[in-house]
């Protein structure tokens, strides 16, 4: 495990996505935008260990993994901007990024990386012995039928897949625990896979568990499962309604509370108690978001940086390099 490599990849991803955030907020990127900021520890701990011929099934937060896997950042940024010379000719957008060279496919359909990684692994078994595939998905996706089907299929066929559940506790505005029965690691284990639970903010933990899974898969011993916790720094997506409320209560709240109060007090409907219960649910959503924020989010990039801070010169050099790369990306795009 080379922490310098890991940090570099995480920082590259973070800075790139922060640039994306600026461009999106400027209105230069359309549609939704789900960043991976906060999950870089999970992505780096796994993707940096991949070999040529391994494949990636990515969810709606695929940018980070593609960068770390070696995609040309200029092509990627151009794609996000919808430019005709982007990675996918401006036809995909951030939720549907594809790179046949890197054997990487994304999808915006929650749960679909299960089947996708299973198929990648099936082909690997026939054509690329010793190669494997990764399925990235959130804890909310664990309730999607095709995801659970994929666990069964991958185990039955003994395929080289690593299922990686990035648990940020949220499915958009829904606290996943409220809609999830039992324990997710147990749910994967019951299919007969080895499972690991790690703190995804600590890239070292991820790396070590991933190592075991990767070795197992390469040796033809079948799939495994990792549950790695994380927090998404920008909430579910850029402009996340809950985060907006928390961050800019003065501008956002009136638009929300006025109709809410009107509806709360309207005659006809549930009892006062039920109404209060309803209100509590909403306040809880916002409250949890505030607490998540306050509780000094464990930022994986900062955590790994702390481990390297003693070697000041090297660190500065590396950071300068990464900044420079990003500056190069931006200037190459803006200069055109």
């Amino acid at each position: 495990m080379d922490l310098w490599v890991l940090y570099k990849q995480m920082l590259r991803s973070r800075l790139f996505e922060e640039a994306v955030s600026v461009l999106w907020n400027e209105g230069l990127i359309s549609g939704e935008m789900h960043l991976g900021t906060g999950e870089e520890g999970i992505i780096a701990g796994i993707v940096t260990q991949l070999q040529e011929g391994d494949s990636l099934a990515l969810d709606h937060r695929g940018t980070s993994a593609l960068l770390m896997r070696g995609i040309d950042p200029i092509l990627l940024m151009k794609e996000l901007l919808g430019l005709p010379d982007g990675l996918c000719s401006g036809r995909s957008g951030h939720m549907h990024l594809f790179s046949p060279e890197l054997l990487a496919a994304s999808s915006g359909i929650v749960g679909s990386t299960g089947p996708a990684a299973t198929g990648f692994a099936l082909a690997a078994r026939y054509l690329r012995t010793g190669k494997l595939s990764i399925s990235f998905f959130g804890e909310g996706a664990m309730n999607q039928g095709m995801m659970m089907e994929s666990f069964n299929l991958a185990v039955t066929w003994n395929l080289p897949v690593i299922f990686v559940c990035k648990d940020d506790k949220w499915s958009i505005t829904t606290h996943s625990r409220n809609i999830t029965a039992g324990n997710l690691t147990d749910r994967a284990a019951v299919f007969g896979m080895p499972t690991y639970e790690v703190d995804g903010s600590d890239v070292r933990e991820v790396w070590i568990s991933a190592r075991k899974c990767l070795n197992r898969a390469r040796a033809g011993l079948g799939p495994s499962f990792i549950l790695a916790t994380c927090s998404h720094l920008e909430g579910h997506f850029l402009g996340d309604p809950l985060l907006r409320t928390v961050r800019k209560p003065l501008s956002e709240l009136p638009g929300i509370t006025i109709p809410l109060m009107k509806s709360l007090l309207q005659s006809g409907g549930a009892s006062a108690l039920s109404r209060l219960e309803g209100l509590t649910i909403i306040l809880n959503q916002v409250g949890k978001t505030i607490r998540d924020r306050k509780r000094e989010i464990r930022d994986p990039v900062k955590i790994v940086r702390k481990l390297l801070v003693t070697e000041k010169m090297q660190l500065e050099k590396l950071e300068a390099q990464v900044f420079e790369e990003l500056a190069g990306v931006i200037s190459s795009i803006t200069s055109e």
Partner: protein
Amino acid sequence: MRKMKFSEAIDDAIAQAMAADSRIIILGEDVQALRRNLLVRFGKKRVLNTPISEAAFTGAGITAAMTGLRPVVEIMLVDFIGTAMDAILNHAAKVEAFSGGRWKVPLVIRATCGGGYGDGGQHEQSLWGWLAHIPGISVVVPSTPADAGGLMFSALEHPHPVFFLEHKLLSDMWLDYLGGASRKSVDFDVPFEGTYGQVPSKWTKIPLGQAAVRKTGTNLTIVSLGVGVHRSLECSKILQDNNISAEIIDLRTVSPLDIRTIHESVSKTGCLLVVDEDYQGFGLSGEVAATLLERGLSFEYARVCTSGTIPFSRKLEDEALPNVKRILDASLKLVNKKV
């Protein structure tokens, strides 16, 4: 008369119905946030968050509807319906027929649809013609707040399954939720006339299967729905400047299809243009043509639809969806053909 936004009108109609009928419940992903105004009024027993398990909760909605509830099942984006398609195709649509008409499924499936805000091809499909292919379900696609509320009010009393599709470009609530509206400088081509407007002070039913003539005309009939109606209206102004008078029909429901209104209009104009944001082949645009032909009508025909996977880039997307320019070109060509 009040004025309301598009999704606000729908929620308001639902609220009126929920207050009168305790069997109406709402279930779907994130509905406790999306329908928070209904949550605080009707409580969490009637507004239920679901896991990301579209197949299970849509299927559950069907049998719940069969045994006394009137569920509104929400599928955030209609594109996601693939995961629950078996419930639609083989269950919701078929129970009544299988039971020899004895058992009905009074279910509303509410979903957003449509593109124009640069979200890419897995998140901007229309699919209304595709859904309407399945016998046994109705498909509703409103284009104004008043219609949206009135048709939802109707759907909630309809004894059969109804797909209620809400175009995201008309709904600033949805554009806001998806993060889009939180920015100043996005260039979404929103047809503002459809996003905000007068609604009745009390909701009454707008029957399913009744199209609305949005503008009368004599040279050309444009049949459309959803955002396409507004694009067509815009286009008709330019046509007027060229002394071409277009009649514009807003279908409002894809199925049942109000073929009478279309027939009347095309009998008069002899010229039909279908403006349909759904995929072109094997869908609504063909059905309209076929139904008129079956009735022995002879007419000039063209269509402006979406022909392939919708590209992400705003520019390419704009060219792919039925825009004013495409409608104008097609209209002119068609009218010239007739002469």
